[in-house]
C-alpha cells in the first residue's frame, strides 16, 4: 500500500540514466533496458530514498504548475513496483 509517508528507492542494480542519443531516460538492469517517456522518468527520478510519496506529488505538481496529479503518479509508482524497478524503503 502506498501511503503519504512511503519512501521509494530504485531497486538494487537498476540504473536510471539519460541517453543523449535517444533524448530520453532509460532504466537499465541486468541484460535489459526500458526506454522511459517523460512523465515516467520525472517520477522515477524522485524515487531516491529521501522523498516521501506526498513530497513527490508536491514536487511534481509544483514543477508542472498543476494540481490533481496524485492518482496518475500513484498508478505509475504501482506499475514500477510491479515491474521491480523500485522498492519500498520505509
Amino acid at each position: 500500500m502506498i501511503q503519504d509517508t512511503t519512501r521509494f528507492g530504485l531497486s538494487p542494480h537498476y540504473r536510471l540514466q539519460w541517453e543523449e542519443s535517444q533524448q530520453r531516460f532509460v532504466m537499465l538492469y541486468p541484460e535489459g533496458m526500458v526506454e522511459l517517456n517523460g512523465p515516467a522518468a520525472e517520477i522515477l527520478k524522485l524515487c531516491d530514498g529521501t522523498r516521501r510519496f506526498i513530497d513527490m506529488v508536491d514536487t511534481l505538481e509544483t514543477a508542472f504548475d498543476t494540481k490533481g496529479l496524485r492518482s496518475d503518479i500513484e498508478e505509475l509508482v504501482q506499475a514500477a513496483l510491479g515491474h521491480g524497478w523500485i522498492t519500498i524503503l520505509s
Partner: protein
Amino acid sequence: MAGLPSYPSGSPRWLLAELTYRCPLQCPYCSNPVDYAQHQDELSTEAWCRVFSEARALGAVQLGLSGGEPLVRKDLSTLIAHARELGYYTNLITSGYGLTEERIAELKSSGLDHIQISIQAPEKTLNDKLAGTESFEEKKAVARLIKTQGYPMVLCVVIHRENIHLMNEILEMATALGADYLELANTQYYGWAHLNRDQLMPTRAQFETAEAIAQAYKEKVKGQMKIYYVVPDYYEDRPKPCMNGWGTTFLTVAPDGLALPCHEARILPGLDCPNVRDFSIKEIWEESPAFKHFRHFDWMEEPCKSCPEKIKDFGGCRCQAYLLTGNMKATDPVCSKSPLHHTVEEAIHLAEQDRVSSAPKPLIFRNSGNSKTLG
C-alpha cells in the same frame, strides 16, 4: 510509400563483445562457430576500447562481455572501466570457472554492473561431464561469492536432452544459490549445438513437461526470482523475430574483430561481414552491405513476401533458414507456412531416433582439437 510496411530502423542498443574464443570448458551446446580455432587473432585492448567508444556514440547502452570465456582476457578490468566510464551497463557473461574472490572484487571496482554465470546441470557428475571439466563445486562457490559481493545473482542454465528431466532440481539449485535472475535457455541449434543436435534435442513431451514445471515455479517465486524462459523454437509454429530485426538493435563483435548483425552470421555465405579493424562502427552500422543486407523486406521469398506477419517476425532467423534449407533467404522453416517446414520435423525425427537408439551418437565437445578437424 503509403500502405507498405516499413522496416524498423534504429541505432545499436546492445553491443555484444565476444572478447575471445578461448575457453577452459567444452560445452557441446556452445554457440561459438565450429571453426573458431581458425579465428584466434584477438583484438587488442585499444581496439576494443575504440569499438566501445564508437558504438556508445551511436547509442549502444547495454554491453555484453562474453566469449568464449571473457575471464581469460587479462585486460578485462581495463575494458570494463572504459565501458563503465562511457555509460554502458556492463554485463559479464561467464562460465564462472576460474573466478576468484580477488578477481570479483577487482571487476567490481572497475565498475562492472553484473555477472551472469552458467551452470550446466544441478548435479556434479552431469555438470562436469557437460563442461568437459571438473567445475561444479567451483561454480557454486563462485555463485555465492558473486552474491556476497553485492552483485545480482544471474544464473543461466542451458536446457537440452541431457538435463531437461532435471528441471525441478535446476529450479531448486537456483533458489539455494539465491539467484535473483534465472535464465532457462533452451538450446538454440547453432554452432556446436547444431553439430550435436541429434544428441541434444529433447522430445516434445520432455519439453512440455519441463516448461510446465518452470512456468509454475515462475509464479511461485514471483517477486523474488525473475525467470527468463527461452523457448526452443523447433516446437513452435512461428519463428522468433530474429535479432528484433536485422541491423536494428544488436551489434556483435567477434574476437577477431568481425562485426556481425547476429552472433551466428559468420556462417552466412557471401555476406562478407566487415571487420572493425578496417571500418568505424558508424560506417559498419550505416553503410556496410552486410548490415543492410536483410534490413528491409525486399529480399524475401514467398510465403514471407506476401505474409502480413512479416512485420512481426521478419521471416525468422536467417542463420536457421540457412542451416536447415541451405538458402539464407528462405522462410525460417520453423514457420508452419514454410514449404520446407518438414526439415524441422525431420530434425526432430533424427533426434528421436538417436534418443531411442541402442548406440546413440557421442556428444562432440567444443575444443580446439575438434574445431581444427571439423571446422
